[in-house]
């Protein structure tokens, strides 16, 4: 699936910038460390926005397109930030046959975003995941560490209200 590029404006703290600068300085000159730098950058920011990829490209002296190519090839890299509340809907076999796609669709409608996206206010992000090992509760969704089981699309509004 093509990754969604976040339209949320990028901002970072001096500490984040300092950490990113440090890992780039440590690995500059060794192109084989590109993925490592990107992994650390994602740990720092939670995703890889344009500004961060550009900084990595310039610092590692590789074309930005190469950084972007790697970021879009590997599933581990995200182009959208995680929200304050990260919602995850299980689309594993058990949840799927019990109707979790309908839950996901309702979440998209309620939040006005697609899967792998984040709301403009940074509050909610939405992702579809595979089995989380709670098949007995299917269909399942999680909001950060809270688990909601045996839900249907009609429950979505009420669950979201708890985090309003």
């Amino acid at each position: 699936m093509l990754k969604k590029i976040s339209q949320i404006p990028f901002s970072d703290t001096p500490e984040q910038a300092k950490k990113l600068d440090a890992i780039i300085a440590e690995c500059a000159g060794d192109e084989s460390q590109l993925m490592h730098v990107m992994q650390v950058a994602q740990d720092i920011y939670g995703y890889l926005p344009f500004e961060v990829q550009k900084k990595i490209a310039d610092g590692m002296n590789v074309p930005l397109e190469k950084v972007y190519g790697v970021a879009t090839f590997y599933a581990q890299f995200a182009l959208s930030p995680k929200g304050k509340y990260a919602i995850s809907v299980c689309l594993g076999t058990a949840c799927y046959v019990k109707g979790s796609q309908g839950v996901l669709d309702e979440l998209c409608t309620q939040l006005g975003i697609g899967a792998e996206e984040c709301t403009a206010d940074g509050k909610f992000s939405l992702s579809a995941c595979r089995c989380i090992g709670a098949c007995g509760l299917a269909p399942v969704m999680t909001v950060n560490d809270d688990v909601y089981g045996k839900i249907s699309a009609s429950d979505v509004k009420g669950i979201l209200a708890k985090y309003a």
Partner: protein
Amino acid sequence: MDNMLNIKINNIPCTVPYGTTILEAARSIGIEVPTLCFLKDMNEIGACRFCVAEVKGARSLVAACVYPIEREGTEIFLNTEKIRASRKKTLELILSTHERKCLSCIRSGSCELQKLCHEYGIEDEGVFDGFKPHYELDTSAAHMVRDNNKCILCRRCVAACKNQDISVIGANARGIDTNIGCAYELPLGNTSCVSCGQCIVACPTGALYEKDCTRDVFAAIADPSKYVVVQAAPSIRATLGECFDMAPGTDVTGKLFAALRRLGFDKVYDTNFGADLTIMEEANELVDRVKNGGVLPMITSCSPGWIKYCEHYYPDQLAHLSSCKSPQQMQGAIIKTYIAEKNGIDPKNIVSVSVMPCTAKKFEIGRDDQNASGYADVDYVLTTRELGRMIKTAGIRFTELPDENPDAPLGQGTGAAVIFGATGGVMEAALRTAAEVITGKELENVEFTDVRGMAGVKEASYDLAGLTVKVAVASGTKNAKILMDKVRAGTADYTFIEIMCCPGGCINGGGQPTQPASVRNFTDLKALRAAALYENDKSRPHRKSHESEDIKQVYAEFLGEPNSHKAHELLHTTYVARPMFKK
């Protein structure tokens, strides 16, 4: 390990040097192994698996393009049922996501995929049809279109871009979503693409092509209120024949001008005039910079791809660029001022067309400050390929045309102008004139051979009446970078540098006829085409720009002298720093 190995290909015994690829070994005994992704020295990734071969003892089929022969007695088979089946399946799989609009495709007839489908007898192009991604055309750049619906993901364009050390395109995403594009899905026009078009001539299919203006030019010719003037660049005469299956390196100067006249242009000119004019202005600018402590080294400004590269990548070094417009733009300026005045034509009614080896020229005509008469110096740029298509559309049997000359007074170029089309040519032309300006004496030998040839970076030093002139020449932006890093560091002790954007110069421009991998991988196209220009130079009565009668006439009647106020107004320009990305 440069020993020779005795091997067998299709049971035919032969001897090849250690490490030869199966592709090369087969070719040496007259067997062609078809390839799709492989471009010698550029894209040696063995990815498309079309060139598969059977090697006795090998576990599976191997990629002939990159498989080195390293064992005495190796037995290779290239014509087995297993290989034919594998290649056919590869084609069928490629076709399953390919937009098969062959009849309306710009590359129909020169498409490498189409040719292979024919050769391998594809019966059902839709046998593996399934999900087919759809891509919007990227028309954001001034010079070209990317149609990923026709992309076969061979990466030849990516390699060509990397070979220029630009790399604004690459493979994004994975699996069925894999597509060639720019970082952050930016349109090409928002990147530091220099418009060289090397990706286009590398593409085996119709996924990449120049923005076509043949219809506009046909329409202008058909419009009785328009005075349509055409100029053809020096290198076109060495390449246009390839559009009509003539051998690379055939000089078709006379047929080129005959064809342009038959297409119906009101005046047919030779950009050689613009090239000579460039030398007059540039050589005098150089002498002025040397005498009066101007910024050195001075760098040539003929190649719009190179200029765009400098503006993106070395915006702090723009003062080194000669202020001269390119030959195309100088000639366009003269057409809409001097020629308009001389013939009593309102420049508003002149349509100025150029035939160029170059896609960056399509970008150049839209730059600021390229309208000396108040109207665009050049209205339409046709690549060599577009001219080839127009000639075919018009039913002109090119190979049977007589030889004709361009019209006066912008027609009689010198040998110095002709060699502009090859790397080192502008330098040599400038030296021929600068040497005589500086020494005041006639040159005994006009050939400066040190700056010729296909090396990426060339250096030479000349003593001109006690003045040491150290020069450098680079072609291809990867090589330009080598010189520009020196210039930026302040360690480039050259007086004059020539840079051309495309490797080998204009003869290898992104607007030149495409040649399939089967030709590119085994022929030195650049050297053949350049040789045609150097032969043409030798045959000319005048070989120094300042000896051109046309040049003398235009200065006497119109411009005054080189670098005069009027010349500066019409023939010189300025440059701007450009960002690497526009988000």
